């Protein structure tokens, strides 16, 4: 490690300190300031943090093996030693760059989007807090510290989903959505905690380097314990990254402000599960069963969510299911050992999905501030249409995002998705077929969305009066659009820039060659799907009160897709209701048995207390007697022990 590199690593703590300072400034002074200042402070904090991340990147360029930065001791209990240690290597720095880079753009965008909201200071405080937690998550060098970040982002997610806690269905809809996200995530967290417990029990350490070094020696390949550990880690990842069966919280999470959906529920936090598995790749390599489980879960999530997305009418719900589907792609990729492909897709997805969400936010903003604001219809694509002329920039960037997501070359999504498909082709045909079908559905629903929202004629008063959003919102959109176009260049087939870069952390060797058959199939299918969308929605633009033509074509399937395969209902009837019944039964038996016992206990304690109190007479004689009795007691104990 040369001196310059050391110097740059010295700046590492600033990565956290900037957003921390930003949020403290806003907490302390927010109420005295003119509102936009909070946004400017928060954005500068994020931007400065991005600069620090770049410094770390430059440092790694000089010597890419990375380092561990220890800032002090956090917990020292028995043999458990958890320092404030941070892993700076190619994987974590990549994540830092994504988090802070996209984060900065979204902060900027949010200044415009949240302008005039009374809670804007609170919003930016949460947003900065999220950055701190997310950076902690991706840079921790041991599981407990990662878990702190893990819980921190969960908390911020909860706070931001319920940011408008007085809105939503019946005035509590948004708050309920936040609670749902939190509770479902707890199920995943349990998996992570149990996995940490097992690891510590078996290895006596929770530091990444030590765990990975010892795991290969301690666990034989496929031993039940390592399978259990990795499956528990998978449960944790499934919670945070919205995989089957824990994905039901993410669509509801769209109740939060759109920048939140873009930052937390599309670009960064939901990728934590992928990061966790990629980081623990050594453990997964020891458990082939778990790897297969990971890729199957990812692929089936990708397909399931993609079908649901085809039949949604809420502009953000489409994107939410799309996010679940794309996360499925990434999970499937890392399950097959194609870590670089997974992380590559994570990065490009962060670009274009953040773009799509922000553009969708721009649409909502344009409708909301157009004079007619009816919150129920603001996100209903059936009420939009013809926004191409009224919001040209938004339309252009949305189109870029949609094409990138659909996997049309040469946009970013094409390259990353193609790598995943190529890996699946080699590893597991079932996964390949599911992912290809999902990719087809993806191109279709994005086409459907573009036509429904931007093409044809305006189908409501609100849509007629829509207008373009201010530059503070459109500039980040343009930057993200540019990234979505060129992002594929990060890991061009044959060049493998990202592959070599991540290889320093994830192990070299996984450099897939370009598979022309797979690429051609995927592209043709995508074009076919877009054509299908044009045939359904483009030829005869929908009228003001027309039903979706897909309703007739798919019949009962459409209902199935529209209702999200009734997964929510299944959870409701299969888990929540029985759980509530059990709770009721337990509550009654508690009332009958334990409350009675409790009352008896209280009576006993009260009687006992009364007796003990009577010894407290306050009379000197009695006190002296107590001392003498105590002396005798001690004497007896000493004599007969």
């Amino acid at each position: 490690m040369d001196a310059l590199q050391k110097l740059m690593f010295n700046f590492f703590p600033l990565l956290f300190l900037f957003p921390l300072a930003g949020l403290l400034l806003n907490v302390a002074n927010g109420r005295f300031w003119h509102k936009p200042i909070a946004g400017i402070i928060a954005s500068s904090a994020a931007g400065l943090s991005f600069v620090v991340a770049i410094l770390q990147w430059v440092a790694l360029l000089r010597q890419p093996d990375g380092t561990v930065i220890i800032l002090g001791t956090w917990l020292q209990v028995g043999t458990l030693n958890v320092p404030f240690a941070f892993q700076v290597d190619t994987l974590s720095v990549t994540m830092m760059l994504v988090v802070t880079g996209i984060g900065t753009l979204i902060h900027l965008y949010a200044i415009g989007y949240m302008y005039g909201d009374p809670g804007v200071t609170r919003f930016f405080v949460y947003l900065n807090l999220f950055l701190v937690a997310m950076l902690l998550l991706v840079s921790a060098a041991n599981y407990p510290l990662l878990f702190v970040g893990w819980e921190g982002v969960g908390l911020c997610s909860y706070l931001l989903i319920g940011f408008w806690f007085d809105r939503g269905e019946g005035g509590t809809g948004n708050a309920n959505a936040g609670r749902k996200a939190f509770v479902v995530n707890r199920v995943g967290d349990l998996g992570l905690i149990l996995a940490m417990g097992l690891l510590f029990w078996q290895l006596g350490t929770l530091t990444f380097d030590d765990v990975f070094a010892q795991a290969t020696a301690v666990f034989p390949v496929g031993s039940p314990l390592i399978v259990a550990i990795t499956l528990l880690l998978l449960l944790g990842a499934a919670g945070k990254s919205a995989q089957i069966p824990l994905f039901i919280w993410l669509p509801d999470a769209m109740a939060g402000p759109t920048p939140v959906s873009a930052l937390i529920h599309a670009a960064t936090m939901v990728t934590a599960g992928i990061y966790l598995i990629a980081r623990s790749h050594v453990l997964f390599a020891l458990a082939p069963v778990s790897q297969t489980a990971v890729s199957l879960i990812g692929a089936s999530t990708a397909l399931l969510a993609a079908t649901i997305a085809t039949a949604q009418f809420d502009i953000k719900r489409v994107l939410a299911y799309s996010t679940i589907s794309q996360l499925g792609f990434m999970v499937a990729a890392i399950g097959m050992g194609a870590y670089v492909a997974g992380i590559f897709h994570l990065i490009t997805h962060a670009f274009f999905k953040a773009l799509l969400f922000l553009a969708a936010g721009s649409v909502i903003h344009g409708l909301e501030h157009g004079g007619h604001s009816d919150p129920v219809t603001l996100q209903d694509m059936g009420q939009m249409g013809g926004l191409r002329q009224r919001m040209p920039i938004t339309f252009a960037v949305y189109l870029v995002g949609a094409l990138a997501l659909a996997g049309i070359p040469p946009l970013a999504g094409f390259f990353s998705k193609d790598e995943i498909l190529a890996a699946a082709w080699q590893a597991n045909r079932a996964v390949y077929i599911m992912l290809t079908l999902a990719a087809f559905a993806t191109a279709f629903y994005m086409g459907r969305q573009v036509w429904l929202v931007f093409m044809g004629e305006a189908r409501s008063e609100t849509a007629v009066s829509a207008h373009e959003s201010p530059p503070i919102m459109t500039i980040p959109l343009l930057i993200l659009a540019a990234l979505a176009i060129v992002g594929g260049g990060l890991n061009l087939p044959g060049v493998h820039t990202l592959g070599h870069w991540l290889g320093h952390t994830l192990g070299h060797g996984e450099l897939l060659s370009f598979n022309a058959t797979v690429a051609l199939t995927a592209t043709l299918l995508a074009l076919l799907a877009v054509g299908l969308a044009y045939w359904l929605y483009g030829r005869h633009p929908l009228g003001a009160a027309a039903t979706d033509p897909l309703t007739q074509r798919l019949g009962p399937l459409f209902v199935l897709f529209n209702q999200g395969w009734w997964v929510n209902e299944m959870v409701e009837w299969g888990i929540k209701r029985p759980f509530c019944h059990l709770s009721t039964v337990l509550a009654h038996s508690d009332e009958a048995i334990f409350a009675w016992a409790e009352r008896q206990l209280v009576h006993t304690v009260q009687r006992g207390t009364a007796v003990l109190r009577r010894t407290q007479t306050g009379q000197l004689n009695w006190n002296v007697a107590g001392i003498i009795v105590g002396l005798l007691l001690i004497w007896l104990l000493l004599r007969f022990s």
Partner: protein
Amino acid sequence: MEFVTPTINILIVLPVLLVAGGGALLMLLELFMAEERVKQWAPTLAIIVLALAFLQTIGLWGQTHTTFTPEGSSPMVILDNFATFLNVIFLLTGFFTVLISVNYLPRVGLNRSEYYMLMLFSLSGMMLMGMANDLILVFLALEVLSIPLYILAGLSRPRPESEESAMKYFFLGAFSSAIFVFGIALTYGATGSTALPAVLAGVSNGGALALAGVAMMLVGFGFKVAAAPFHMWTPDVYEGAPTVVTAFMSVGAKVGGFAAMLRVFVSAFGSLGQTWVPAVAVIAAITLIIGNVVAIVQPNIKRMLAYSSIAHAGYILMAVAASVNSPDGVSAALFYMFAYLFTNLGAFAIAIAAERKLGEGVMLDDYKGLAKRSPLLALAMAYFMLSLTGIPPTGGFSGKFFVFRATLEAGLVWLAVVGVITSVVSGYYYLRVVYLMYMYDGEGELHTKPALLTAVALTVLATLVLGLLPGAWYEITKQAALQGLQVLAGG
């Protein structure tokens, strides 16, 4: 017999001399200055003296010295990390007591010039408790500690409660001191010496005489730390004494008692360890049960905190009992006392802020609705209550954790079970304060002045730090315990 001058190193006892000298200086000032001026300057002077002593003490960390060594005998005074760490606790206790007293005393009309003087004298006694290497010096320190407290307890004369409190404390204190001295005499009879190393050497051959000495000294210490069944003075005295004195006593006298108890029992009576551990464990269990159970029904915050302090003596006694068979016992006790210092003084600081007039506003009902009128201080009080209950992330939790761990290590599983169960019980009365503050409406204001707020802020901060980063501090107590025990074991 030729008399040889003992070797004396004044530097070692300089912190004690500074504190006692500060008290003497206050006496001297009263001779030559108007009383009002003395009252005005006394707190500042006390803070300066404490700060100087603190600096000197910190400088002595890591060093081991003995002094006042008569020819051919063991030194009377020993200064090791154990003593230094305890001196830090005492000096901080003094510091916080001054901070919470400075506005309280004039407000309730108790601004007597002798208050700070007596406090400093008592502090010097406490400091000697940890440094004594001879039973005679232990007794001397015990009396220097106690006698000013007897007077302080009666400071709000002619209030009958206060006078009663002082009288009761004095009579029972004298009684227990007598037993204690008797214990020293018996120990001397059994071992032929009062120097701790010589006692250590001779006590295992001392037979019943030595056991009687151990029993009587245990009674003496048990009285000072308010362990059951020697606790009965505590509620009356804590209630009757002015609240600042109660605060000072609840930490200073208790830690002082434990300082000498650890020194004497763990080292001098160490070879009898297996014999006295059951006795101390039983005393600890009784103390835990009585303190925590009776605290439930107390309507008065001072009485409640009195029983609470009895209960906490029980937890520290657990660590004392564990110290024979576990290497973590002494350090757990030291850590517990360190955390208890901040938490308890912080809670008392708020109780003082809530006391409207002398003896008014000390009922639990007076805390109703505090959260609405003074959210930050109510939050601080809630935090102290959580810490006293032992809920993370607080110093109280860390302390309990270390104590329970040491108890389990020492094989006293039943005692740990009693400790955990009584901790749960304690949640009832501690959290009731929180409940009253947050769930009710009421009036009554808090008297907040900068000094008091500083004390609250510092104690909250310290409790938080001990809760979040217990590891580093435990290392320090570990060093204190290790070095202390080694020196003692080696004489």
